[in-house]
């Protein structure tokens, strides 16, 4: 197994907006009139190309997410993007981290779409679930005070829909479904791997530990990520098991170039945009009342007042570098920083490596990806340089012949009753004369014609 996994995490930002000095928020209230579909088309297609390129460069997965009514991430439906990615890649896993399940009217829709993607992709889907961030509750009719309870119920419903034979009745507080019976079912058993991103709240860590899910720490200073990972490890021990390294992933935007100086010169403006413009969100939108429990809010507000945590839009570029919100430099620097980082926080994977940060041009993204793949990645890989998934047998056969060899005949062959024939017809051979007597059909056709007078 490789020392570290690298996930190419894309947000799909839209940068053609007025400067952030002219408004309070790039979320909720900054008008959608600034979105130009002509420019959007170009960006979407570049971003999709970048995500697909991640397979050739050797990333461990391409990852997309869901955000609403903002310019930081213009991907209200990660499932749509994933549908395109699985058609243009063959072996690389694709993750949606994740679907904002409390915000949707019917969580079964998510269960169905993810199952479709998992089947079509041959079991390559990572299914993340999120609550949606605070501002998103201003664009939906769901009360932030219901967020946690709706998340829990939607999660339980989706997992049950994937793992138990339907139909069954769901009688929840928020959702009532007389017959839960989603078709298709997912290919991965018992269900696709589940990732949960978080900001380190104890409630989230407990949830992950109890379910043995994979954690993804969102942007945070290194010391905080370390504390949170250690908290998660403790929670897992409390649940009676030692957490595997693959459970711990951190989102650390990474930019690599020929030299340290060159890397900073190229990345500074765009990484600053990511935090200072893309995440310009006033506190009252970030934390709508009820979104956090009073206890979590007390912890967070306490840390904020002591200056321990900052609103992302208040961070300077030097803060970001110093506290390792981001890693920027020459291949040598990035290798060392990343090695130190992962050893210190004890992480198994890094996300947002080489991705498109803010208004970063396409060529710069591709340059970052290539240098990273060729000059940093091998350091953390086995001698063969492969991502772990390439050393495993794919869940779905690559060819029809393999499929026939591995799975043979289906358990239920397609049989049905055909008019005028007593036996059930086996559809695979339904057209051969031994099964259907053509003369009888001719007679039936003849009989049905109106007689000429």
């Amino acid at each position, binding site marked *: 197994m490789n020392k570290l996994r690298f996930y190419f995490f894309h947000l799909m930002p839209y940068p053609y907006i007025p400067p952030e000095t002219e408004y309070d928020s790039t979320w909720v209230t900054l008008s959608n009139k600034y979105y130009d579909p002509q420019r959007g088309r170009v960006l979407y297609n570049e971003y999709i190309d970048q995500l697909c390129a991640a397979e050739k460069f050797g990333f461990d997965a391409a990852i997309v997410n869901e955000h609403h009514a903002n310019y930081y991430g213009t991907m209200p439906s990660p499932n749509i993007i994933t549908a395109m990615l699985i058609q243009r890649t063959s072996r690389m896993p694709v993750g949606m981290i994740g679907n904002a399940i409390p915000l949707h009217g019917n969580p079964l829709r998510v269960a169905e779409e993810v199952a479709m993607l998992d089947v079509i992709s041959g079991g390559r889907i990572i299914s993340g679930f999120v609550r949606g961030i605070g501002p998103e509750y201003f664009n939906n009719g769901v*009360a932030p005070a219901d967020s946690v309870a709706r998340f829990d119920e939607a999660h339980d419903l989706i997992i049950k829909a994937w793992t138990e034979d339907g139909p069954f009745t769901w009688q929840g507080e928020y959702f009532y479904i007389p017959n839960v019976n989603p078709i298709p079912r997912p290919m991965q058993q018992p269900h696709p791997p589940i990732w949960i991103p978080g900001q380190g709240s104890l409630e989230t860590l407990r949830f992950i530990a109890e379910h043995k899910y994979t954690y993804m720490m969102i942007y945070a200073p290194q010391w905080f990520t370390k504390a949170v990972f250690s908290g998660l490890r403790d929670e897992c021990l409390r649940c009676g098991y030692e957490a595997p390294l693959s459970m711990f992933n951190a989102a650390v935007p990474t930019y690599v170039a020929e030299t340290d100086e060159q890397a900073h010169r190229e990345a500074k403006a765009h990484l600053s945009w990511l935090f200072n413009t893309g995440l310009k969100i006033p506190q009252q939108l970030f934390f709508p009342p009820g979104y956090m429990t*009073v206890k979590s809010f007390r912890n967070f507000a306490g840390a904020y*007042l002591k200056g321990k945590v900052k609103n992302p839009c208040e961070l300077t570029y030097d803060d970001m570098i110093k506290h390792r919100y981001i890693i920027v430099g020459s291949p040598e620097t990035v290798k060392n920083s990343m090695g130190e980082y992962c050893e210190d926080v004890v992480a198994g994977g890094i996300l947002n490596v080489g991705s498109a940060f803010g208004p970063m041009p396409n060529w710069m993204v591709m340059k970052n990806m290539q240098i990273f793949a060729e000059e940093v990645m091998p350091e953390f890989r086995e001698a063969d340089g492969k991502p772990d998934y390439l050393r495993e047998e794919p869940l779905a056969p690559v060819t029809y012949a393999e499929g026939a060899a591995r799975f043979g005949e289906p358990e239920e062959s397609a049989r049905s009753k055909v008019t005028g024939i007593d036996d059930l017809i086996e559809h695979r051979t339904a057209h051969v004369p031994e099964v259907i007597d053509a003369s009888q059909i001719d007679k039936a056709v003849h009989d049905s014609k109106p007689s000429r007078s």
Partner: protein
Amino acid sequence: MSYVDVIDKTEIPKPDKYYTEPSFEETLGLRIAYRREGSGEAVVFLHGAGYTRRWLPMYQMMAKGVDFVAPEAPGFGETPLPTSFRDFGDLVILYDQFLQQLGLQEIHLIGYSMGGWAAAEFASYYPNRVKSLTLITPIGLRLEENPGVDLFQLSPPELMDRLFNDKAVMEEYMPDPDNFDEGIHLYAEFSAAARLIWAPRYNLALERRLQRLTCPSLVVRAEDDRLVPNEMAEKFADVLPASRLEMIPETGHEICLERPEQLTNVLLRFIKEAS
């Protein structure tokens, strides 16, 4: 199963000014905090989304004329918030039981702001128990043309500015920014308010249900309410049968704090007429 399942226990901070120890009434498994003073006609006051835990000047003035009862809703002041608490239906049933336990069958009901919505809901459920209904800068109906600002999107300074037109009064009631516990408590109270009013910001059924009221009703509006459009009070006055609309000059949304004396005069006069 108890009505109350889990209660997040935290020490409730006590404001310096106007704080008084509440009484408690165990109601459906929940300890409802309330304050009560005065004699005469029983008048129940339902608070808005703030300024709890206090025996405010307006309450003091009212208690000189009537038996003034001010309960605190779940999640406000010293009444805890049960996790099962969801909507105005829960609130109205809780208040009904609470008032019965206090021996208050027929009451004059007053609601301010969010409490105005609660009072209108109560009256629509129990019209026979309400001798008169007074709504002060209430919310709860749909204003199709101009829904007004979203109070949850306002920063604390913007919210304070929009609540008060009299800035001297605003300064007097400004929460101390260095009081950490009070800040957390206000987040908790806002969370309880969001549970009741986040979406939708109105109850369309109220317009129909209020039609069955036979008691006299009064709607008090501000001269220039910059939080909730003045049309809201006007619409309530239109919808309520046997209602009248009064305006308190030189006020914003927080009439109770800005002009307690004028407001009390209007309220006591109306209650006297309706008794």
